Structure formats: C-alpha cells, structure tokens
C-alpha cells in the first residue's frame, strides 16, 4: 500500500504551504513506449522536492512532461492553479518555470553572456541580480565573452543553473545537476542550492546523489516503474530505513 502523494507533509508545512504544482494520474507515452503509468505528485510552494528512483523509473520523463516537452497522454497537470496539461512548452515556461535539463542544454556557439541574456526573457538582466548570480558562479564571469562550448562540464552546469535563476522563476525543474561532477564541485552546488532554498525557491530536482538529496531536500518522492510510490518529508524518509532499502536498494544510514 503506498501512501497518497498529498497530505503527508510535516505538520508545519502542511499548514503553511499549498501545492504550486500537482500531477494527477499523469501518463506519458514516448513512441510506442509507455513510460509514466499514472503519476500523482504535489510540489509544495517554497520547498525543495527531491525526485528519487532507479534509472528508468521515469524521473526525467516526469520533468519533461510537466514542461510539455513530452505530451501527457492522460491525466492532469496543474501549475499555480492553472491546467497546463495541453499548453505548448513556451507557454508553460512563461508561467514561470525554469528547466535545467540533464544534458544542460547549453548553447555552445553562444557566449556565456548571450546564454544569460537569452534566459532573461523580460529584457536585459537586472544588474543586481546578475551580480548575485555571478557571485554564486565566479567562473562564468571569467569566461563571460567566450563561447559556452569551451566551458568544462562543471562550468556548463553552473551556466545552466545560472540561466534558470537569472530572472526569478516560480519553479525550478532541475535534472541530475551533479551528474559526472567532482565531489568538490558538488559541495559548491550544495552551497548554491542552499542559498536558493533560503530564498524559499520552489524546486523539483531529480538527483541520484544521496548526499546532495539529504543536504537540500525538504521532501522526497520516490518513483518506481513510472509511478510515484512513496512521498514523504525528508525527516520521515531518513528515519524509514525499510522504505529506503525497498525502493532505492540502499539505506541512507549506510551512506552517511
């Protein structure tokens, strides 16, 4: 028996937050493959939700379906009180969702500066906010005028995240930001995410790195075979070694 996705939040967050994004029985087909089999998920405003699960469970597909990059074949997606299930990707993004894809989606032939200008949809980036973003990621300032294609993997990831936050957005969808990065860089990113978290940014993040998930996650949703089978606060999840072992194949305690 799996607990319902909604309503298992910690007492205080259940009282103070409402769901910014909800998925109700969302199904997604890619070609003839049936990937999502009815995802139920509620993302509370102002919290960081970690989407966990083994490879192939449908985590990336869930993010892409929210943004309309792959179409939901059934179910309903509601963002900020609005049904976005059938909206086109640009229209969904314009409602205030930023996306950091797994491959980072950097425009390699554009300079770092041009990548950020493009991400600031409503005009030239606000200088103060830009200074804050570049303060989070100093290498971007150093390579300001260089084609983004020459950046290292870590620097590209920084640029991808910088692009998502160069203007305030209501929800950040971040797909495996630490994939292939050195531990030192991961620590840096944790610092950045904690700063975003301190500003009450709503984040839905796919992440395999348990250390990072524990460091920044408020809530956890676990996917198995195209469904969210478990949803809980991080505190509850950390305490429940049985669920960890059963759903992820390891226990957090062992990794600590």
């Amino acid at each position: 028996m799996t607990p319902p996705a909604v309503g298992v939040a910690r007492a205080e967050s259940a009282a103070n937050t409402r769901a910014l994004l909800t998925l109700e029985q969302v199904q997604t087909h890619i070609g003839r493959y049936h990937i999502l089999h009815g995802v139920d998920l509620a993302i509370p405003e102002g919290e960081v939700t970690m989407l966990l699960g083994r490879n192939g469970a449908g985590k990336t597909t869930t993010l892409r379906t929210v943004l309309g990059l792959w179409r939901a074949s059934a179910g309903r997606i509601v963002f900020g009180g609005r049904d976005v299930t059938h909206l086109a990707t640009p229209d969904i993004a314009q409602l205030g969702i930023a996306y950091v894809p797994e491959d980072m989606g950097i425009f390699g032939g554009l300079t770092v500066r041009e990548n950020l200008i493009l991400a600031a949809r409503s005009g030239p980036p606000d200088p103060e906010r830009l200074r804050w973003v570049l303060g989070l990621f100093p290498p971007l300032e150093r390579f300001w005028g260089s084609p983004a294609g020459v950046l290292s993997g870590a620097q590209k990831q920084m640029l991808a995240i910088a692009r998502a936050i160069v203007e305030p957005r209501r929800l950040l969808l971040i797909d495996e930001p630490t994939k292939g990065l050195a531990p030192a860089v991961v620590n840096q990113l944790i610092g950045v995410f904690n700063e975003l978290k301190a500003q009450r940014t709503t984040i839905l993040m796919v992440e395999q790195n348990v250390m990072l998930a524990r460091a920044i996650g408020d809530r956890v949703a676990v996917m198995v075979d195209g469904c969210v089978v478990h949803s809980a606060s991080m505190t509850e999840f950390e305490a429940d070694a049985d669920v960890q072992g059963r759903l992820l194949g390891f226990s957090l305690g062992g990794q600590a």
Partner: protein
Amino acid sequence: MNAPASLQPGTASLLAVWRVRAAHYGAHLLPVALGLAALTVIPFSTWASLTIAGVAMGVIIFIMAAGLGLVFGLMNILNFAHGAFITFGAYVAAAVLARMSGWTQADDAVLNLLAFAACGAAAATVAGVLGYATERIIIRPVYGAHLKQILVTVGVLIVAEQLVPVFWGGVPVPVTRPALLRGSILIGQVAVERYRLVAIVTGLLVYGGMVAVLARTRIGLLIRAGVQNREMVEALGYRIQAVFILVFVAGSALAGFGGAMWGLYHELITASLGSEVLVLTFIVIIIGGPGSTSGAFYAALLVGLTANYVGFLAPKLALGSNIALMLAILMWRPTGLLPASRN
C-alpha cells in the same frame, strides 16, 4: 579552502578558447589561401579578373543560399522549393527591368541604380510572398518527415519550372543590365566588369547586415540559439515557430533577390535556373556547416573562386570541381567549415 581545479581558469579551458579561435580564423583564411595558390599558376592580370569574377559569383551564391541554411539549421527542414524562389526572383527582375527601360537606358547613374534596386525589391517581395505561402500550405503538414519534405518541395520546384513558360514563354529571357552596370572599368592593367563590383558590394552589404542582425539583435540571438538547440529555446519560453516563419520568409526573399542578381550576372535566364543553382547552394550549405551564416559565406567564396580558377586552368574539370571541393572540405572537417553548434 582552495577552490576546486575545475573552477579555476585552468590552462585547459584557455587552450580550448584559442583552439576554437584558431579554427575560426582558419576557415576565414581559406579563400585567401586558395587565391594565393591560384596566383602561383595563373598570370596576374588574368588571375585578378578571375578572382573578382569568383568573388562576385560567390557572394551571389551566398545570397541565394543563406536562407536555405538557416531553415535547415533551425527546423531541420529540407526545402528544395528554395530553387523556385530563385527562379521566380530572376524572372520577376527581368520583367521589371524590361518595363523600366526608360530608367535602365537613361544616362543617369541614379535612375540606373534605382532600376537595379526596384528589380531587386520586386524579386525579393514576390519570392517572400511565395515563401510564406509555401511554408503555410506545403511544408507545415510535413514537419519532421524528411522524405515527405523532399517529395513535396521537389514537387513545388517542378511545378514552378513548368509555370515559367506559362508566364514568360518557353525561350530564354534576356536580362537587361542598367547602363551603369554594363562594360568594364580599368584598374591598373586589369579590366573589371562594373556589375561584378556592384555585386560584390551588394553581397558584402547583405552579409554584413545578416551578421549584424544575428550578432546584435535579440531575434538574431534566438535564431542562433534555435539552430543549436531548438527544444531549449522553447523551454526558455520562446515560441520558435514565430521565429522560424520570419526566417523562412526572409530567406525566401533573399533567394529571390539572389536570383535577380544571378540573372543580371549571366544576362540570360531559363526556367531551369533555380534547379541548377540549387545544387550550388546545397554544396555551400554543406561545406559551410548547416545553419552557419559565416560558414555559408566563406564556403560560397570558395565555390565561386574554385569554379573560376578551374574553369580557366582545366575547363573540362569545371563541372566536377565544386563536388571535389566539397569532398575535400568534408574529409578535413566533417561538420563543415564553421559548424553552427559547438556543444
């Protein structure tokens, strides 16, 4: 605490920056290298004429090819109907010039240039409208299906070729150059056709304008980004479809304008002009790297120069020289001279 190595401005990254720059300038210098190489085997005055003819031919090919490359780069659409826009541009220009004989024959440089501008504008307008209609009616239903795109757009090209005799008769049509653009001027010992100089100036203006729009405007930024990663542009909240229509119409208009300039270059046009030139434009796009405007420009110069040099040195090889050039470039750089995406 020390910052991790990957966050430092490490030498590896600076080296990568320089490698990109070196590759960039290498492609720019290739036409110059080709010219210098030809100078070693061709007498100077002949070489100068051939070079100017080659550059003029090159920039006109660039004007015709530029839109095709962006359309392919941005939406992955193979558009053979592009040749129809070139043909119609040439014929519309010829018709306009024929009706403006008062201005083209006048001994007045301003009237001559106005006639030239008018025929170019008419060609661009007609081709732009045709392009818009083609995109809406013919190409939109076959997005994402290359084979169908080839079938329907080759169909448009064939229909257009058959329509030409209906409008303009079955015999080749002469294109009358305005008086100012006829004959040659002497620069030192070298006779230079006036029209070639005008073509070079016009081509450089078009290229400069395109580069400026692509580099300095938001719409240009969107086009360049869209060529590299269309999905991410949409995820950032931009409707790429609107950008694409704009590019398609502008590219069609440029094709029409280029067709007009090609007609004036050869002074005689036939209904098969578009399909003949289309081969050259595809070669240019492939050599330059699909979606890359600068790549197409330098590739077009290479094609123009090669055609002229080889035409002089070994006329029998002239036909195959562009294909040989394409093979050579692709063996050296499989993604083209200046590939649009460097992810």
